[in-house]
């Protein structure tokens, strides 16, 4: 469990993190999504006590991180996979971690296995690691203490598609065992495939948060009439019902309502449908772009169609 309350960090006049409040819950993967420079890393550094907050609090497992007696046993942290002494081998870095935490050295081999780093790779110096290997090593270091909570900053960065799938499986399994995962990314796709809850941040502020289902529901329903000529009828039916609707370029409609409601509307308007489904990731992506554009520029970007 991670509890962040009114967390704020200012550098002079610049508010890097502005009144951040959210909770990452056990058994769930919480995605921390935002464009580069949105304040994700600063927020995460405050959660683990590396950066003193200007105001607000962050607790992990019910305590301030600095008050945890032996943090790696409760919280696995990966903030920057490249932040390691380049002259140490991967195995040495994990050995230092195991010794610091007070774990048997056998844990080193186990966690190397967990992240599929071979013995040969483990004995090479980190200087010669690819970013993907560094991420795996960083995950191994985060998992070595068998923690309940994971805090990972851009862990998928530098991973190939197979690596991203592997990461997703690791995090999913971790959360299914009751663990809490908070991971950040500036790429929606990465968050979308793994997160249960999403916190979207732009310019240091939260611009949206909720379960993935809720945020996807916000994207509406995608519907395609069997006969393209019926599109106008369906649009009128939706507008009459007070539901906002946008025509897609390829004959489909995006309706701001749940799928069953849209189905009933189409049925009443006597419009046979070829497709009826929840608007997919594109909706969340659009929302992400829109939300971040809102906060990245002072003037809101024009929103799609009538759905403003």
């Amino acid at each position, binding site marked *: 469990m991670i509890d962040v309350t009114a967390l704020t960090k200012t550098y002079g006049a610049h508010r890097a993190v502005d009144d951040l409040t959210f*909770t990452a*819950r*056990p*058994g*769930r993967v919480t995605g921390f999504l935002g464009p580069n420079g949105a304040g994700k890393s600063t927020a995460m*550094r405050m959660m*683990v*006590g*590396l*950066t*003193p907050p200007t105001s607000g609090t962050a607790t992990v*497992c019910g305590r301030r*991180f*600095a008050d*945890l*007696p*032996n*943090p*790696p*046993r*409760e919280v696995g942290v990966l*903030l*920057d996979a*490249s*932040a*390691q*002494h*380049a*002259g*140490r081998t991967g195995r040495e870095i994990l050995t*230092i*971690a195991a*010794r*610091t*935490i*007070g774990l048997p050295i056998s844990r080193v081999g186990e966690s190397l296995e967990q992240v599929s780093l071979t013995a040969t790779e483990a004995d090479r110096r980190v200087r010669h690691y690819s970013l993907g290997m560094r991420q795996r090593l960083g995950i191994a*270091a985060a998992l070595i203490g068998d923690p*309940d909570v994971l805090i990972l900053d851009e862990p998928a960065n530098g991973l190939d598609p197979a690596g991203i799938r592997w990461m997703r499986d690791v995090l999913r399994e971790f*959360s*299914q*065992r*009751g*663990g809490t995962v908070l991971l950040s990314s500036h790429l929606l796709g990465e968050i979308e495939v793994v997160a*249960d*809850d999403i916190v979207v941040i732009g310019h240091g502020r*939260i*611009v*949206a*948060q*909720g*379960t993935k289902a*809720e*945020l996807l529901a*916000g994207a509406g329903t995608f519907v395609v009439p069997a006969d393209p000529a019926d599109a106008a009828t369906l649009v009128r039916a939706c507008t009459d019902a007070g539901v*906002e609707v946008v025509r897609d370029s390829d004959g489909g409609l995006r309706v*701001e309502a749940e799928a069953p409601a849209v189905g009933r509307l189409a049925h009443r308007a006597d419009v046979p449908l070829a497709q009826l489904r929840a608007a997919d990731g594109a909706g969340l992506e659009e*929302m992400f772009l*829109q*939300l971040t554009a*809102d906060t990245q520029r002072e003037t809101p970007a024009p929103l799609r169609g009538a759905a403003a």
Partner: protein
Amino acid sequence: MSTTLTPAPAAPTGTPARAPRTDLTRPPFGRLVRVEARKTFDTRAGLWLSASIVVLAVLATGAVIAFAPDEALTYEQFASAIGIPMAVILPMLAILSITSEWSQRSGLATFTMVPSRGRVIAAKAVVSLLVGVVSMVVALGVGALGTLVGSLLTGLDPVWDVSPSEFASIVVANLLGMAVGFMLGVLLRSSPAAIVGYFVFTFVVPTLSMTLAAFQDRWADAQPWADFGYAQTALFDGWPDGEQWAQLGVSSLPWLVVPMLVGLWLVTRSEVK
């Protein structure tokens, strides 16, 4: 649509959180010291820097035997020849033990594993102290070996002209040098800056001070009490007397103690990025 969605209480999926751990204890200080000692030698840079103390001690001994006149092959000769490289390398070890956490950014991992930075820094200080003392004892041994070999080669009796108190004061001088390195490390938290700072501290500042003393009578009078480098020279002329200790203590305040306190405060407060 609204741009802010209210957070709905998430329906817990999966199994509930695991029972809280009961076996959690702070890592004992001795463990932190062992880990920091390991970190001193587990990189090529650290290993070679440490090895170079022994290598240079042997080279310096060889040079004294090869080049010094026979009657100058005294223990003191060996000791001072070995002492010069040591006086440079030991502070570097002290500096790097601190600054590599920032310059190599390993501090991100170190200080999230052990959030009480003061304990980590204290462990590093203990390791530096141990490395300093062990190195001095090694130097003592190498110097003694050189003296014996020298006397064998020249046929003269070995001259043991370093008293225990002289040796002790040289140890103190080297430990003070390491303390200065440590101070610059915590104050600057950057390897290149701290290393440059050390050379400025030990070579440039004393020269400036001497020059100033030559022209300024008031500085010349104050120098033993205000110039830390000057006060340390007493350590190389045998065991200092009471007044010289007092001068060391007083002059260390502005040059070592106060900047060290500021540095320690910065280390515990600053951001680790």
